[in-house]
């Protein structure tokens, strides 16, 4: 990714900033890029190195989404939150750079891959909008939202690789990839309640599955949550809610939903003509 940035006609300040942003995520497993590569390779049985550039393009889209998400959450832990106006500009550039990379490739089906990239990026942005409104307070609408927001990004990654390989849409890939995104979001949601600090989803009045569970299954806690979320009260009892998440079944509920997606996705992956290693890798993303 850095080589791509360095080769562009940007001034040093711009390149330096983008590379610093890329460095923030240098230890991340680059799951989205790998999904793109794996699907291309499995459908073509080719080691074409050009797919690496496309994988980098996918990761630039993801980095853009990460930056915008952190700015929206006012998450001050990351470099890009230090100068939000710069970060917003960079985030938009990354999207166009990604499109440029796909368009500039020699793949026969690059236009179809670009269509996928556009469609699924827009779905994800749509989901992000719903997430920002924070109105999805029942299981069905919440799962629909995270399917759009997170599932679309994993689907995008897999389907770009698939489309470049085959030139056609493969619905099974879309489905299990979407499920992987949902699973990872549920994992994030569970972790978002674990630590009682400024990032805690409950303290930040976010909605997630365990919170939906408490709202639906405990009249007493539902009232406390309603008052807190509407600003009538300003504090929550940490011990009460940490105990409630475990002892009421709220966390079990989130895990149970996660496992329904995991079983469905796992079954679909097993129907694909993929190597054992690739199937194994895809299944690790469902944990």
């Amino acid at each position, binding site marked *: 990714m850095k080589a791509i940035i360095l080769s562009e006609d940007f001034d040093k300040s711009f390149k330096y900033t983008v590379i610093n942003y890329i460095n923030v995520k240098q230890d991340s497993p680059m799951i989205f890029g790998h999904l793109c590569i794996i699907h291309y390779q499995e459908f073509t049985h080719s080691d074409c190195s050009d797919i690496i550039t496309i994988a980098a393009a996918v990761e630039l889209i993801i980095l853009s989404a990460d930056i915008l998400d952190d700015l929206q959450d006012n998450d001050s832990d990351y470099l890009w939150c230090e100068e939000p106006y710069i970060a917003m500009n960079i985030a938009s550039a990354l999207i166009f750079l990604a499109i440029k990379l796909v368009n500039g490739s020699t793949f026969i089906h690059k236009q179809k891959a670009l269509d996928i990239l556009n469609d699924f990026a827009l779905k994800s942005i749509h989901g992000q909008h719903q997430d920002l409104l924070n109105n999805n307070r029942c299981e069905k609408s919440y799962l629909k939202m995270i399917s759009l927001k997170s599932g679309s990004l994993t689907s995008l990654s897999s389907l770009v690789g698939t489309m470049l390989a085959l030139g056609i849409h493969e619905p099974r890939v879309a489905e299990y990839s979407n499920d992987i995104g949902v699973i990872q979001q549920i994992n994030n949601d569970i972790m978002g309640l674990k630590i009682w600090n400024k990032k805690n989803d409950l303290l930040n009045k976010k909605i997630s599955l365990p919170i939906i569970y408490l709202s639906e299954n405990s009249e007493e806690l539902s009232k406390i949550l309603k008052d807190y979320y509407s600003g009538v009260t300003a504090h929550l009892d940490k011990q009460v809610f940490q105990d409630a*998440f475990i002892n009421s079944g709220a966390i079990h509920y989130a895990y*149970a939903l996660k496992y329904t997606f995991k079983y469905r996705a796992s079954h679909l992956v097993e129907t694909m003509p993929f190597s054992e290693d690739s199937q194994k890798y895809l299944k690790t993303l469902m944990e």
Partner: protein
Amino acid sequence: MSKMIQYLMENPNILKLLKERKLSLIGVSAVEQQAIIESFNEPIYIKNNGWR
């Protein structure tokens, strides 16, 4: 799903029979039932460290 989880939390004897495959849940699919069992099979709480 949430009502089913709540019911099992309130009726641990039913949960035990479910885990032992001595009964099945009505109104959930086989996949959902297995997901529910698996969610109760793993330890959620790690002492002094919150849940996993």
